[in-house]
């Protein structure tokens, strides 16, 4: 039995465990008591992490679509063909692009970025989850500077107050939820902000009810109440508070909000956990900024037991950002137009970099003629999934590098098989900024190669690669390209688990603008009296690591079998009044269009709200349009 320490591939908590292998095959997972994040416990996903790589539909040999069928070809032929076709498109002046992934390693993402910028000479590079987390990260960045201050996941257990705006923490980030439970058990006040009475909300000292898309109103209420009580920490952010106070004058403060504000401000240690939210237009970014201000003016940044933690869904979201598989950044998450950073990367790559920002994932899919997708599956991640699928179907030349046969891989013109997380060396960066090693436990199946190797070979065909003999070589270069990662290789090699934290943020860069507290106009009207919101919790059911795991996929499979057309959720009172619930069909109508879907009753929802789980968002895409929350009319169909 082989026991290999590695990093969990699922959410961005970044737990560690031992993968067990027998006769070259993955057979199980054993927990570790010494891992700095997981310290002995794992969530259900972690416990079944070995399954997808073993049981999944794997890509095993390079395949090219020719004459309407998939032909198995040699690696050289496949890579030459891919490079040739991409060059043809570029030479014909057609736009091309690259998608990295929050499921890919830092090395894979870094080389995907290098392929796009140095090889294809385009900033059309993004990853599917980026549009979802981008407003959240932008809001935090606006207040905290480039690197958000993070609280360590395990430090949350020592916080006295925890403010949590969540999708469903127990489901999305069980390890972080565990730390919250431990704090609450010790007597911490948990304050939840949200529209559902989730498991965490049931354990909270206070649950502050918010309307979908308007969580910011509650956060601004907390800011206003803190200023009312004069509890701001003037030494933490030396700004004129009068302007901020004026801006918040009209914001509603309930008794509960005042109580919560007092707990937050008077606590020595307070943790702020924020998940990507839904909302119209720029609202999610403003909400995140308000949240960041709250932590800043109460002085709860970057000290033990205090800090802000953006709850990013997938394992390597932070790494994908740091590696700059985003259209307007350079490695290190530096702005594209930062002269020093441009020079640094140009010198390193020996190529002039394109200067115009690229398209973000959604527009990119609509506009490019050639696309390289690295371990990403846009239809399962992007808010308008089917729209993305249809757009990909129109792409002239689609290349997919993946370990699994995803819906995207199925329609690709070239499929390049790469190693799964259990078969490759590399690093990932969790949401608290811990860079950790992945280690190869078994060989990739068939002719599959490690992702960094395949990308390096593609880069070489565009005269855009150094020669790498290992993933460590790529990681060393990342240290030169992204200053935060400088010296990391040494630090990882000194740590038994192969992990090290990125440096924390620079307190001097705190900026608290008073702007942005204006309330959101009510969306509902007499004609459209209900709010339909798209649940923002990440849909794990369509992720290959879950959908290919026999143990983890059961719930999702069963639900989809029972409700092949999806469903929306509403509270019992509303359902009774409309004679709905129990899967009865309802017609939803909004200004965008209409859809007929089954309705299920949920006990944790408030009247006037309809929810569509992320997995079924496409069933009501006519109704939602491009919004994540919209006003609707509902009636029995």
């Amino acid at each position, binding site marked *: 039995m082989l*026991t290999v*320490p590695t990093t969990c591939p699922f959410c961005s908590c970044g737990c560690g465990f031992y993968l067990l292998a027998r006769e070259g095959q993955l057979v199980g997972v054993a*927990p570790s*008591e010494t891992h700095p994040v997981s310290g002995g416990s794992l969530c259900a996903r972690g416990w079944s992490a070995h399954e997808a790589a073993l049981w999944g539909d794997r890509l095993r040999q390079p395949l090219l679509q020719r004459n309407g069928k998939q032909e198995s070809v040699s690696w050289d032929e496949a890579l030459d063909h891919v490079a040739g076709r991409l060059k043809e498109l570029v030479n014909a002046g057609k736009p091309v692009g690259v998608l990295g992934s929050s499921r890919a390693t830092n090395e894979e993402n870094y080389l995907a970025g290098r392929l796009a910028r140095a090889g294809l000479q385009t900033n059309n590079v993004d990853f599917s989850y980026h549009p979802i987390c981008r407003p959240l990260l932008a809001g935090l960045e606006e207040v905290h500077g480039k690197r958000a201050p993070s609280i360590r996941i395990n430090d949350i257990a020592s916080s006295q107050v925890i403010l949590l705006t969540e999708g469903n923490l127990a489901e999305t980030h*069980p390890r972080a939820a565990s730390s919250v439970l431990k704090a609450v058990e010790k007597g911490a006040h948990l304050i939840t902000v949200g529209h559902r009475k989730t498991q965490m909300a049931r354990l909270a000292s206070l649950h502050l009810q918010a309307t979908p898309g308007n969580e910011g109103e509650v956060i601004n209420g907390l800011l206003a109440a803190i200023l009312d009580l004069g509890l701001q920490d003037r030494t933490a952010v030396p700004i004129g508070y009068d302007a901020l106070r004026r801006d918040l004058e009209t914001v509603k403060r309930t008794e509960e909000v005042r109580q919560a504000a007092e707990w937050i401000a008077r606590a020595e240690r307070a943790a702020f956990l924020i998940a990507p939210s839904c909302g119209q237009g720029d609202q999610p970014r403003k909400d995140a900024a308000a949240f960041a201000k709250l932590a800043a003016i109460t002085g709860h940044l970057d000290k033990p037991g205090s800090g802000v933690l953006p709850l990013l869904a997938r394992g390597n979201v932070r790494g994908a950002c740091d590696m700059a598989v985003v259209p307007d950044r350079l490695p290190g998450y530096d702005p594209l137009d930062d002269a020093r950073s441009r020079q640094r990367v140009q010198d390193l790559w020996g190529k002039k970099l394109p200067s115009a920002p690229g398209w973000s994932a959604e527009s990119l899919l609509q506009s490019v003629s050639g696309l390289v997708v690295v371990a990403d599956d846009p239809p399962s991640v992007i808010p308008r999934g089917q729209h993305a699928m249809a757009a990909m179907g129109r792409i002239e030349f689609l290349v997919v590098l993946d370990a699994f046969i995803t819906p995207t891989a199925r329609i690709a013109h070239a499929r390049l098989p790469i190693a799964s997380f259990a078969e490759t060396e590399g690093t990932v960066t969790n949401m608290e900024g811990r860079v950790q090693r992945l280690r190869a436990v078994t060989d990739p199946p068939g002719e599959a190669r490690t992702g960094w190797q395949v990308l390096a070979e593609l880069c070489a065909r565009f005269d855009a690669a150094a020669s790498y003999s290992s993933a460590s070589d790529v990681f060393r270069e990342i240290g030169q390209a992204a200053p935060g990662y400088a010296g990391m290789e040494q630090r990882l090699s000194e740590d*038994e688990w192969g992990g090290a934290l990125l440096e924390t943020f620079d307190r001097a860069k705190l900026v608290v603008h008073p702007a942005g507290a204006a309330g959101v106009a009510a969306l509902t009207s007499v004609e459209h009296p209900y709010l339909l919101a798209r649940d923002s919790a990440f849909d794990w059911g369509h992720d290959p690591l879950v959908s290919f795991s026999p143990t983890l996929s059961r719930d999702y499979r069963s639900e989809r079998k*029972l409700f092949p057309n999806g469903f929306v959720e509403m509270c019992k009172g509303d359902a009774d009044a409309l004679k709905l619930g129990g899967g009865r069909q309802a017609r939803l109508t909004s200004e965008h269009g209409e859809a007929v879907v089954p309705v299920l009753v949920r006990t944790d929802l408030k009247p006037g709200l309809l929810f569509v789980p992320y997995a079924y968002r496409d069933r009501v895409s006519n109704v939602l349009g491009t919004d994540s929350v919209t006003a609707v009319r509902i009636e029995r169909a």
Partner: protein
Amino acid sequence: MAFAIEKKAVTKWLEKLLESGEVIAPIRTPCGDVLFSTIRSAEQVVWDFPNPLYPPKECVLPQTDPIVKIRRNGQHHEIEPIHDGTRRFLFNARSCDAKGIAFLTRMHEMEPADASYLRRSNNLTVISLACAAPCPLGFCICTDSGPFLSDGYDAQLTDLGESYLVEVGSAKGEAALAEAQDLFRKATEDEVSQRKRLEEAARHHFGEETCHFASAMRRVSTGRVPDALWEKMSDWCLECGGCNLVCPTCYCFSVKDLGLDGAWIRCRLRDSCQYAAFTLEASGHNPRAQRKDRMKRRFFHKVSAQYYTRDDAVGCVGCGRCIKVCLGTTHMPAVVAAIRKGKWHE
């Protein structure tokens, strides 16, 4: 009959065992964890160690357990059982784990007997190391599964300083000693009484965790645990299944066919009764759809009089692993205390 072996001779004994089978023993990983693992040399074995978090039940119930190979042959399917006949020695298992494997074997011997399990367990010799110092979270004294054992082992070692006392509990244990007969001598009366003194001393060094099963059992068996209490407790469970997966006495599984080289390998996969889909039926109906119902079921199986009567033991060996592994706060001692007191976190 008790024997003794000098400490410096143990390496030779292990070398003999390595010649005649696979030896699984606690080793220290470079990351600092202690794990039960197949050893290549006697030097790898650690002797002074906290009980590894991952239990050695892997020796009899692997997480992924291939049972039969199914191959299509024209209109028919050929089914070929997969036999794991490897002779294994589990060395330096702690008392609770030896008892755990004995418990699992009793469960799998029940009709209909599980041939696949029994083939493995029949080929497994459990050589346990008695616990002179109970582990900080252990409460095996509440479950009659430690710190020293009077049954449940094939051979039990006790550290006497210069030598180990070796008690033989079965023919398999005798055979393991016979592999290196000349290394063992008959234990002296002094050595036997020293073991008794060590056991007595160990009994006084338990930590704070206790589990008063008897009074919890009365309440669970007679349905006197209010539903509201289960509901309240279930909010403190994050449904990781860790309690089941590391429990030395849990043996729930599911079955799945793995496609491999044109054949299918039917595998038994370790499972958790705490997972929502564990009891999910093909129709979509789930008799235990709510977490509180699953939790109630778990503790009914573990501590009810009905199961105690059938199994001759509670479904717990007091190893304390669930305390460490629980992502929430609903481990065995916490829930048993709540059942006994009728309240949770108050």
